[in-house]
């Protein structure tokens, strides 16, 4: 994650959780690093053992579903324009007309929170897609390459991971300037090593597995072998990483917006809403509370779902 970048191999929570745990360079590549940063391997709460939906997962999934609807079709949840200012009713408390109250310009907070989901979630998802895409590509490449190239790529991941996520993102923004696309680029680049390292370790395991060996014996062409047998099997940890990474990315986005580097006002992004609202906290708690609650609940939900996926993934590996 900016500090949020605040963005470690124990899966330690990065930011919100997923901290990529640095894999000590000395470690034998054979070791499977299934643990995802930021995710505690064991759920702290007593969780059900079976598969399928367990009770603790219903609430997070429901919340994420609502957030997804808000992001894709905000009109379904609110008919109010998030940018329509009404200075006469500025900083009005929650009421039947404005469920979440209004902000310092009299804009409806509920509508801004709902429309904000689109900004916050799409930035998070785009950053994760970028990081996971490039990270997987580089990870598989490193895992399949001869030793010298693998060393080179691994050291490259180490170097990128050396920069704290937030600072790396700030460096990118210093070069590109603020704005939505640049925030995606900044957070995406900062998260690439997390994915690349885990996928590389996974590739090592798959590459030495019996089915790949057999396919080689049968004389399968290398591209076919990689596409059909290696790739599908190294992608296992990806859903876990991506879910946790999305939480991290959302916190990072809100942090960058808070510093004024993200989507520019008047765009309703959760982080920039919080940044604007903090000056009015003493008179209008609702302007901080609702966007803050949305960020927090989204990240908690993603983390819970991610942990669940991780337990399933580890169960299968065992």
């Amino acid at each position, binding site marked *: 994650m900016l500090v949020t970048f605040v*963005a470690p191999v124990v899966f330690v929570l990065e930011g919100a959780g997923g901290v990529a745990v640095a894999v000590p360079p000395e470690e034998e590549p054979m070791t499977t690093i299934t643990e995802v940063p930021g995710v505690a391997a064991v759920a702290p709460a007593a969780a059900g053992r079976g598969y399928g939906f367990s009770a603790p997962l219903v609430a997070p999934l429901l919340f994420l579903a609502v957030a997804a609807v808000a992001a894709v079709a905000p009109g379904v949840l609110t008919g109010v324009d998030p940018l329509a200012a009404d200075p006469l009713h500025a900083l009005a408390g929650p009421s039947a007309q404005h469920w979440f109250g209004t902000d310092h310009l009299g804009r409806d907070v509920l509508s801004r929170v709902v429309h904000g989901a689109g900004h916050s979630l799409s930035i998070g998802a785009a950053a994760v897609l970028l990081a996971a895409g490039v990270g997987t590509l580089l990870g598989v490449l490193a895992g399949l390459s001869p030793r010298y190239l693998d060393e080179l790529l691994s050291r490259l991941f180490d170097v990128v991971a050396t920069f704290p996520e937030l600072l790396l993102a700030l460096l990118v923004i210093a070069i590109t300037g603020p704005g939505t696309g640049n925030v995606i680029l900044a957070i995406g680049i900062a998260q690439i090593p997390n994915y690349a390292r885990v996928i590389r370790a996974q590739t090592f395991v798959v590459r030495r597995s019996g089915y790949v060996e057999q396919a080689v014996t049968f004389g399968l062409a290398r591209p076919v072998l990689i596409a059909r047998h290696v790739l599908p099997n190294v992608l296992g940890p990806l859903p876990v990483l991506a879910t946790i990474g999305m939480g991290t990315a959302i916190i990072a986005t809100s942090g960058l917006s808070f510093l004024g580097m993200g989507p520019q006002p008047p765009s309703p992004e959760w982080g920039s809403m919080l940044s604007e609202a903090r000056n009015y906290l003493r008179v209008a708690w609702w302007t901080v509370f609702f966007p803050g609650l949305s960020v927090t609940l989204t990240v908690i939900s993603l983390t819970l779902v991610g942990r669940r996926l991780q337990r399933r993934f580890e169960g299968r590996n065992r």
Partner: protein
Amino acid sequence: MSTLTLTRRRGLAAAGWLGPVVRRLGAGVAVLWAAATAAYLALMLVPGDTVDVLVGDGLDTPERRAQIIAEWGLDRSPLQQYGDYLLRLLQGDLGHSYILQRGVGEILSSQILPTVQLALTAALFGVVLALLLALSTAGRRSWLGGLAGLSELVVVSVPPFLIGILLLAVFSFTLGWFPVSGDRGLVSLVLPGLALGLQIAGVLGQVLREGLERALEEPFAVTARSRGITEWRLVARHALRHALLPAVTLTGWFTGYLLGGAIIVEAVFGRPGLGQVTVNAVTGKDMPLVMAVVLISALAYVTVSTIVDLAYLAIDPRLRRSR
């Protein structure tokens, strides 16, 4: 014969020590060099004329341009420029901020102290809270552990600046216990330190408790119990050591997190420090300053990680064997 074997073993053991230590130190230096190179490449990749980029939003005069060209050796071949840059870094010369019209080293050294204070306070809060939480809940009734797990989850899911805002609202605005902003002695460190430290407490608490719970299921725990040791002593004297190892691995991440997080938390609390400098430098496109901050944080990360790696060698003899 036996003497001979012994001597040889000793000799090997000494060499075995040296190898991994040298390798780790070398790796640290190599990563730093690569980080410096990466920062340099980032600067060169900025579209447009490098002189324009380095001037940023600062005063653009022919004299200034001549100074920049001389300082960065921009009239020489790319390889020479890069060599000059590395040489300057080695001498501790981080360049000039053309916006603030001061040496970058001078700016940073005047601003780094409040940030280091904040980071250390946060680390202290984080570690103490995590230890308290983990030691008091591990292996106890499961609802207690669940509660601790839940609070850790919430704490790591709230953006740190929001924690800062909420702490301000409660303890400064409402209760008036702490100053609202600025840097006025130790009291003003409490809330920012807490805002930054809570996340560390959350992450570290999870890792510690999980480690403790794993250790308590190990055969050695059963043995200790069968000797009639109290549960408290078992946790504090035996299990904690095992739980600490994975936590130590995270130290490097904590360093990076503290540096990055400090930037945001300083903005919330209006504290002077590297954060303010960095945010201004980023918005003003003050590239020499931004690069210097990034390099310093990389230096801090690599130094801490290398020390942790070396500490591991001292703690765990198995790692001393060269591969």
